[in-house]
């Protein structure tokens, strides 16, 4: 299957990845080849087979509703690119 550069550009946008024109071309070639490898699975008869999301048939464990996380803002924001008054800063969001 060929994933053309236009499709690559739109996927890249959906995934918020800036790509140069050269990167788009290169990705188109590589991803098309990989999709070829993937499309091979369409030959498998999976009628009546349930999808398997996790290898073990395990179920979700539930946590009791008790507060154990205390404020660690200082530590957790130590790595933040831009912080002011405890808020993470981003370029202005317009709704």
């Amino acid at each position: 299957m060929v994933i053309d550069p236009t499709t690559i550009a739109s996927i890249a946008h959906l995934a918020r990845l800036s790509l140069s024109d050269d990167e788009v071309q290169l990705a188109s070639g590589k991803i098309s080849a990989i999709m070829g490898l993937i499309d091979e699975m369409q030959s498998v008869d999976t009628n009546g087979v349930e999808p398997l999301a996790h290898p073990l048939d395990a179920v979700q464990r539930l946590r009791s509703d008790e507060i154990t996380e205390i404020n660690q803002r200082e530590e957790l924001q130590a790595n933040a690119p831009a912080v002011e008054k405890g808020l993470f800063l981003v370029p202005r969001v317009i709704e």
Partner: protein
Amino acid sequence: MEWETVIGLEVHVQLATKTKIFSAASTAFGAEANTQACAIDLGLPGTLPVVNEEAINMAIKLGFGINAEINKINVFERKNYFYPDLPKGYQTTQLAKPIVGAGHMDIALEDGTVHTVRIHHAHLEEDAGKSLHEDFHGMTGIDLNRAGTPLIEVVTEPDMRSAKQAVAFARKLHAIVTTLGICDGEMSQGSMRFDVNVSVRPKGQTTLGTRTETKNLNSFRFMERAINKEVQRQIEQIEDGFEIVQETRLYNGDTDEARSMRTKEEANDYRYFPCPDLLPVIIEESRLEKLRAEMPEMPEVRKARFINELGLSDYDAEILSAEAATANYFETVVQSGGDAKLAANWVMGELAKTLNQNDLTIKNCPVSAQVLGGLIARIKDNTLSGKIAKQVFEALWQGEGATADEVIEKKGLKQVTDTGAIEAIVDEVLAANPAQVEQYLAADEAKRGKMVGFFVGQIMKASKGKANPGMVNQLLKQKLG
């Protein structure tokens, strides 16, 4: 042409858990920015979610409350999109296998008929953080305290036909979630938020018109106004020959203005898929049984009981059962006061008025239900007249005593019911007003009724309002013949 309005609702109900749906950080409202956002809430690398049991329990109770099926296998999925208040780049929510399946709710309409609104499903999900647009050198500030707060989203079928019906549904749902104790119901804090889907169609047409979605309405009043405004806009558009564009709209309650949100350059492609960090939630029958046993009386059952057992009017019963806090307060007043009608009058009258004046709700009312009940008991046993009772209430509100009896004692407000003492005052008043007595005796029966009021007033004044008015009347009748 006559138009019909079609409305469907998506209601976000914040669950009253202590901790987040996937982390053990507090959900308390109003903390300093990002002090309740732990590593999981911030979506830091290597962190993992674990499901809060209480969120599951509350969702199940909601399911019971709206007569819905509980899906015994439910699955959390990721809804992928980038936004600064969404730390992981996806919202963990439910899509294909939500916890609550189809259900329904009956709402009472003004004309006395009952209308059924079908519930499509309700699903659990995490709330997002908040973007603060105040000026940070042209930047937006992100507070993630709210991120991860559990929400249950109730999605109705398009079964409502007017803004009033939508509001009736919303109020009823508010009554249910507060009665269940699964939501604090604080609309001003965003504890319940409504997205309304509105379309119009010529009356008689069966297919639906193109709908718009107005998001994030957080009061019943705004909701009603926003719907009416949108209905009006759509009808005008169509009548002017335009088509309705399917879009998301924002309504500003303060300015009563609505506008279209900037159209997205691309169609949303949320790439839902089962969250691989979580496993299917299996609801055992034993859990359902336990929760069923814990179910409180639902508002409509309570209302019926208020009418049948307490003898309240339909109107009073409706108002007193609509909110769990009010209903619980009222029931306690009845229990300790011993008179349902008096209790209803006081809770809906003096108490509601005073709360309103002081901008308080029943939850932070300074006079407890037991204390108000104690006051009512003193009205019932004739210790207090209605007028003096208001003085006692005022004193209790001001904290001038812990109980009605204490205030009565301290201020000497006890109603005088001693016949001898009242008789003495009556005699005194009659002796001091010989001219009025003469007039009274000369008057015919029809006029006497009015004239007796003068003596009663004088006697009450002389007794500082404490004389029992019934006894005063009786004595006057005897003495004046």
